[in-house]
């Protein structure tokens, strides 16, 4: 478990400015998928209730039906948790000195990286498509001087505002770094 006031390798006078996760639309998709996958079989079962009762009363078909239904619903429940964990653990932390990116890709793949604000060359906000325009979410790309140094904030809320904050923090950090040298 980590705390926002105790970041990994926290520097002196470093403060968290923004803590970002993907937009709530990502959670909505998980919830809609969960409701559809559980609701549809329940609805069909309700429609054919008499047949289901016959199946359940049968000593062999009944137990196969109960076990397979149980496995189906438990699997949906588990996949929902895995998807939610993926959402919950994908985070971007912007401090007054650096950007920390923690990404969870499935259960067994996790990437954590960080970038000094002074190394940032350019920040770009992107809102693409009807859904992103209506719900105001999208991507922010932070480019460094290094060829592959590109940070990607995926599907975050209000990307233009985040880009403005990053740009402002980069300017402040560069002034601070150059004033020291």
């Amino acid at each position, binding site marked *: 478990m980590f705390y926002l006031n105790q970041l990994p390798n926290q520097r002196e006078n470093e403060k968290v400015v923004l803590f970002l996760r993907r937009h709530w639309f990502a959670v909505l998709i998980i919830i809609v998928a969960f409701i559809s996958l559980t609701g549809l079989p329940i609805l069909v079962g309700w429609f054919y209730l008499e047949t289901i009762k016959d199946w359940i009363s049968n000593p062999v078909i009944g137990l196969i039906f109960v076990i397979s239904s149980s496995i189906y619903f438990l699997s949906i429940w*588990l996949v929902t948790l895995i998807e939610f964990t993926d959402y919950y653990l994908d985070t971007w932390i912007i401090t007054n000195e650096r950007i920390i990116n923690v990404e969870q890709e499935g259960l067994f793949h996790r990437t954590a990286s960080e970038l000094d604000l002074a190394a940032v060359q350019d920040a770009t906000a992107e809102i693409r498509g009807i859904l992103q325009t209506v719900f105001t979410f999208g991507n922010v790309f932070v480019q460094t001087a290094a060829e592959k140094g590109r940070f990607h904030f995926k599907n975050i809320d209000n990307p233009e505002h985040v880009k403005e904050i990053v740009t402002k923090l980069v300017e402040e950090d560069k002034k601070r770094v150059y004033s020291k040298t």
Partner: protein
Amino acid sequence: MFTFPELTLPVSIFLLLYGAYLLLFLFYSLFNIYHLIRYGLYGFGLYLIITVFAGGTILLVSGSIFLLMKYDWSQPIFVNGLIETYGNNLLPEGFVEF
């Protein structure tokens, strides 16, 4: 005339399969919860997710066990007669047999 030998399977074989699935479910769930606790941000939301997931799992598993308890697990299944016995009455009325 060639005849198949009478094959019987104990019904409890399904219980073993279900048990194996539950073990797999438990492994993935605990691994996921470990991830949430180890890498998640401290806060109320984290405890809420774990509680909701654990509560839902307990409800689903206990509901299934409650339904499974009423079956006789010692009875055998006669494989040869299975389709003849149950095949005709499986589908609800209105389904056309091909």
